[in-house]
């Protein structure tokens, strides 16, 4: 589907010839060229508008993806619970669409008001795609409204196929919208299709298809699903905690589990999408890459490590709590501590910095810029090893969870289990050897290159183990049924932690994406000469992100509340005239 969308996006631009006589040049600005309005800090205004828009946009792009998948599963299994859950997901998020649009409008207005010359330049370069972008909202609205409002009308047989097609179209349009917008912001980071002075002479496709366009496209599609899943999971968690009655608890427990499953499945490949993005940043400009990972933004990635560690620990904790739904899980409890140990240890490795910023006394006391023993854990091979292990052991938690209420009935149980253990042992050994040998006994080229077989090992282990288990548990006996609703309340707090951490992390990453441009509106081409052109400290950035998260969560609460309100009814006594 991505390919279809990609072609749709590319066709108009690659087929059309460059317009005759197009010439968009970069102006030279001074601080007085930037409007000051009502004492508002322009940068913070645009920053918050953009980030809020991005959070909502990510959410409304993600929901149709997993709603479509869940609806399809429902059609395939003919289990209506899936159909109803899919509908509930989209119902919950419907208000989010208008909020996304409102915030998009706010962002656009802020950009034009506070940065008029920049927008003149960008609209000059991207006039066509911006025009298509605006028109596409008609398609988005039509598909969304018919898909949602027609859910219970388009049921059964051909009508269901039509409905599914609408879902697919909704996803295609949404993705296309994102691809177009991604072109504008990645152009600002890694401009293409313009000469060294930034003059644009009509190469629209060149401007769109810049270095970072596809890496951002990939990263955002996957990250949106992870983020969206976590937000819906938070909704389910809230409904679970305020449920009245066993049935409601069971329903929302199930919903939370599915939302978490979606979020974690999308989380697992995310580090690699991020790695690819960073590799492309290095390809585009070594300077930018070094500033990102080894310069002023280096410590930001330690904050990121803390956030990601939180995500993995919360996700695993939720799974371990969930094992309590079935008595059959007791036999697996002893393994949890080992998984927990590996995950926490990996997190600690990931969070260890390499080069420390030290005063002269600290430098003398430490005997160098790196800690004698721990410093070596700060380099990339150690981090890659740690993240691969975290992902692998999360997969183990999943495997155990899925097995907890079943007893296999096939004849080759012993063999199957032995194979599984052998697979994991071999895989983990390979990851460790790759990380340690190439990481500490070779050179930079090998170190970087070794990360690829490491990640492929993880993927191979996950795929093969899933396949083995699915065959192993074919026709399995349910030992002790999964009792939906039978989870401790603290498991739901793990879901809230997941949603908050995901949101905050996304805000932090939004900052780095924009901040890496430093004093440029468009890197190396259009200089930012406003008073806010300086790069702020990380603490400042974290504060702005935090404020954004609070505003976002408040708006999300509103979205969820509204989805309930339409079914509330009041019957005021004696209010209405009787016939």
């Amino acid at each position, binding site marked *: 589907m991505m390919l279809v969308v990609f072609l749709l996006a590319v066709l108009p631009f690659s087929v059309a010839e460059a317009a005759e006589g197009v010439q968009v040049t970069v102006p*030279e600005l001074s601080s007085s060229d930037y409007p000051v309005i009502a004492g508002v800090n322009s940068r913070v205004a645009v920053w918050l508008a953009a980030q809020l828009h991005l959070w909502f946009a990510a959410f409304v792009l993600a929901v149709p993806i997993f709603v479509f998948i869940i609806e399809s599963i429902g059609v395939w299994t003919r289990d209506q619970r899936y159909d109803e859950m899919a509908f509930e997901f989209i119902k919950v998020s419907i208000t989010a669409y208008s909020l996304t649009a409102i915030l998009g409008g706010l962002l656009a207005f802020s950009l034009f008001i506070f940065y008029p010359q920049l927008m003149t330049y960008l609209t000059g370069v991207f006039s066509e795609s911006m025009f298509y972008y605006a028109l596409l909202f008609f398609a988005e609205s039509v598909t969304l409204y018919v898909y949602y409002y027609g859910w219970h009308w388009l049921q059964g047989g051909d009508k269901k196929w039509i409905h599914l097609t609408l879902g697919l179209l909704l996803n295609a349009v949404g993705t296309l919208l994102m691809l177009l917008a991604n072109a504008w912001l990645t152009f600002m980071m890694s401009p293409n299709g313009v000469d*060294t*002075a930034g003059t644009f002479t009509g190469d629209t496709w060149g401007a769109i298809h810049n270095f970072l366009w596809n890496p951002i496209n990939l990263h955002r599609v996957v990250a949106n699903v992870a983020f969206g899943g976590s937000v819906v999971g938070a909704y389910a*968690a*809230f409904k679970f*905690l305020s449920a009245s009655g066993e049935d409601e608890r069971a329903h929302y427990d199930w919903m939370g589990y599915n939302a978490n499953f979606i979020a974690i499945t999308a989380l697992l490949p995310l580090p690699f999408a991020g790695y690819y993005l960073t590799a492309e940043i*290095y390809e585009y*400009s*070594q*300077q930018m890459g*070094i500033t990102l*990972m*080894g*310069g*002023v933004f*280096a*410590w930001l990635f*330690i*904050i990121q490590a*803390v*956030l990601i560690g939180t995500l993995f620990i919360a996700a695993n904790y939720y799974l371990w709590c969930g094992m309590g739904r079935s008595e059959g899980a007791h036999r697996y409890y002893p393994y949890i501590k080992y998984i927990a140990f590996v995950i926490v240890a990996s997190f600690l490795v990931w969070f260890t910095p*390499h*080069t420390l*910023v*030290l*005063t*002269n006394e600290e*430098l003398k006391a430490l005997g*160098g*810029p*790196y800690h004698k023993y721990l410093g070596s854990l700060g380099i990339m091979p150690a981090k890659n090893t740690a993240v691969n292990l975290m992902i692998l052991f999360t997969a183990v938690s999943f495997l155990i969870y899925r097995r907890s209420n079943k007893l296999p009935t096939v004849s080759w149980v012993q063999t199957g289990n032995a194979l599984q253990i052998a697979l994991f042992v071999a895989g983990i050994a390979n990851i460790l050897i790759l990380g340690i040998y190439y990481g500490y006994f070779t*050179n*930079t080229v090998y170190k*970087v290159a070794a990360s690829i077989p490491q990640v492929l090992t993880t993927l191979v282990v996950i795929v093969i183990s899933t396949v083995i288990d699915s065959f192993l548990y074919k026709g399995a006996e349910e030992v002790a049924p999964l009792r939906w609703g039978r989870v401790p309340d603290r498991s739901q*707090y793990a879901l*809230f*932690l997941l949603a*908050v*951490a995901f949101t*905050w992390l996304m805000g932090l990453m939004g900052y780095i994406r924009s901040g890496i441009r430093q*004093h440029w509106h468009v890197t*190396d081409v259009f*200089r*930012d*000469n406003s008073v806010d*052109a*300086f*790069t*702020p*400290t*990380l*603490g400042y*950035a*974290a*504060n702005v*992100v*935090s404020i954004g998260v*609070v505003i976002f*969560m408040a708006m999300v*609460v509103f979205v969820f509340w509204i989805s309930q309100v339409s079914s509330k009814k009041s019957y005021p006594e004696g209010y209405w005239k009787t016939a």
Partner: protein
Amino acid sequence: MTQFLKIAGFSLLVISLFATYSNLGIPQIKPAPPPSQESVDLSSMDMDSFISLGEKIYNTKGTCTLCHNELGGRAPMLDNLGEVVSARLEDAGYKGSAANVVDYIVESMNEPSAYVVKGFGKVGTNDQESPMPDVRSGSIGLSEAETLAIVAFLQDSSGLDVSIEIPSNVEEVAEVPEEVPVSTGGQGGQRAKYASAEEIVATLGCGACHKIAEFEGAIGPDLRLIGQSRDAEHLRQSILDPNADITEGFVAMMPPIYGDQLFASELEMLVEYMASLK
């Protein structure tokens, strides 16, 4: 409602933990302010001023003197262009498309491999590839006007008549990465410190000549495993006084300027980093 308040409280707590960690748990590095820009009005310039501008860019933003200098060795001197250019254009090994001195100079800056002077090519390429970067690219980033200013300077310093015209429509900017004072209360005139040895290596351009980190400079010794053969003391001396001990097979051409460009703690950080390259 209680549930909602409990959850809201929990979420606010988590957010404040992340914010607190970001403010107090990590060093608050104040990034260097944006480099100051000098806006130059070309329309009112005479040729002498334009040539001086070219010389200034040649010595600062262009980073030309890093390699093109009298210590000799890995980049040809540029004061004899009048004598050599026409022969080079006729040379069988010439891969470019310039027809005159001005075009040749511009081409050398934008596509340095179009002609590589014998003995100055990248090691192992038989003088087919130049180690010089395209001056329009990222970290140097010369504009067309800045390039022309350098052309004017080079023509003039080679004793030729300056045959170009001062560009008129382009308002040119010569960005001078100065050390702008950071207002850290009482410190006065101090730039923000480098955060890592890798940043020093990248910013000071070590990779232009050396193989180090991910750079593939082909002019000086390969430093990727230098910690195996040199200790910290030796490395420190090599940075501060590069010509005191020259590695066999290389010539004395590393500028002795880096000691003045680093704070003592940054020098130590760099030395420790290089000593750990094993």
